[in-house]
């Protein structure tokens, strides 16, 4: 099973040494997602509509900022669905997020797998946290550097690769 097929919406990135043209896009949303290396090849300003086909903030009902619960979500905050939480979330996006969170997963990965911008994911996750449907574990705050034993574990883990 290839990683690309494992989750819908996952967009593999091409070898960046090939520049933006090396990027593989499985889906095109009409906007042309820029890669981290620059704008998408072949999409000139003015070529594309002003946004993706479904405007991101439609699914958040116009909210661009998450609730207090969602505000502290870092790129690598790990989210996990609460087992046995019966209430169904509203909307397919929240359901899709919840499905991904059956196993612990980072905020950035939810965003990438579902092809939903981070800001929108934060808003939706804030709702799910409020609802009690997911729990999170925040990344180590900047002021508190990773502990020595964590660093040692990381080092051992990399050596095992």
């Amino acid at each position: 099973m290839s990683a690309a097929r494992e989750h819908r919406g996952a967009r593999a990135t091409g070898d960046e040494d090939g520049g933006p043209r090396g990027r593989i896009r499985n889906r095109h949303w009409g906007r042309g997602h820029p890669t981290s290396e620059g704008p998408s090849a072949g999409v000139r300003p003015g070529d594309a509509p002003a946004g993706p086909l479904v405007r991101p903030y439609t699914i958040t009902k116009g909210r661009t900022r998450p609730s207090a619960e969602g505000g502290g979500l870092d790129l690598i905050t790990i989210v996990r669905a609460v087992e046995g939480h019966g209430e169904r979330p509203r909307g397919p996006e929240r359901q899709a997020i919840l499905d991904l969170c059956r196993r612990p997963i980072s905020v950035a990965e939810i965003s990438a797998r579902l092809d939903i911008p981070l800001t929108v994911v934060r808003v939706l996750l804030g709702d799910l946290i409020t609802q009690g449907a997911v729990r999170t574990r925040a990344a180590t705050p900047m002021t508190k550097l990773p502990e020595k034993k964590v660093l040692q574990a990381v080092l051992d883990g990399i050596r095992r690769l």
Partner: protein
Amino acid sequence: MASADSENRPSDHEAIPQAVKIIVAGGFGAGKTTLVGAVSEITPLSTEEVMTEAGYGIDDLSGVESKTTTTVALDFGRITINPDIVLYLFGTPGQDRFWFMWDELAEGALGAVVLADTRRLHTCFHAVDYFERRGVPFVVAVNRFEGSTSYGVEEVREALDIAPHVPVLMADARDRPSAKEVLVRLVTHVIDGRRPAMSG
């Protein structure tokens, strides 16, 4: 005590792993995503931050109102260290105009790899400068490219004005053992630097 980290609260029946991250920085085309892909257990993914606020200085949004957004993509990979720790590797946005994303990336980062491309050494000045100022431990990996003039490690160190204690090493971003070695050097460097405990 050893397992205390894996438990968030005594009542949690399903533990949530702790995530840590390493930043991979460097100029456009320096091989950041290639390096991430060489060690990642997943095909590198790309996530997007949509920036809706004006005032970052480059885009003139006056009169365009909220319809104009800037999208910046972040490529990343993942390495599951053990059931309790997951390591994420994030490539920095290649364009300087997205520098505002660096703060979010750097926050809580374990350390950074600066990938230097000897054909365009100047493209990583910004990264070196940023991590130095911010106190993020980093190593410089000189990515070997076909047809590039082969500079030695010391030449690169001198050209980039890298402090003696900061590791500079040759690397091949496409090669898994080489990418691994870069990360090992970084984490070792982080551990070494941790000895004088940070006060406060």
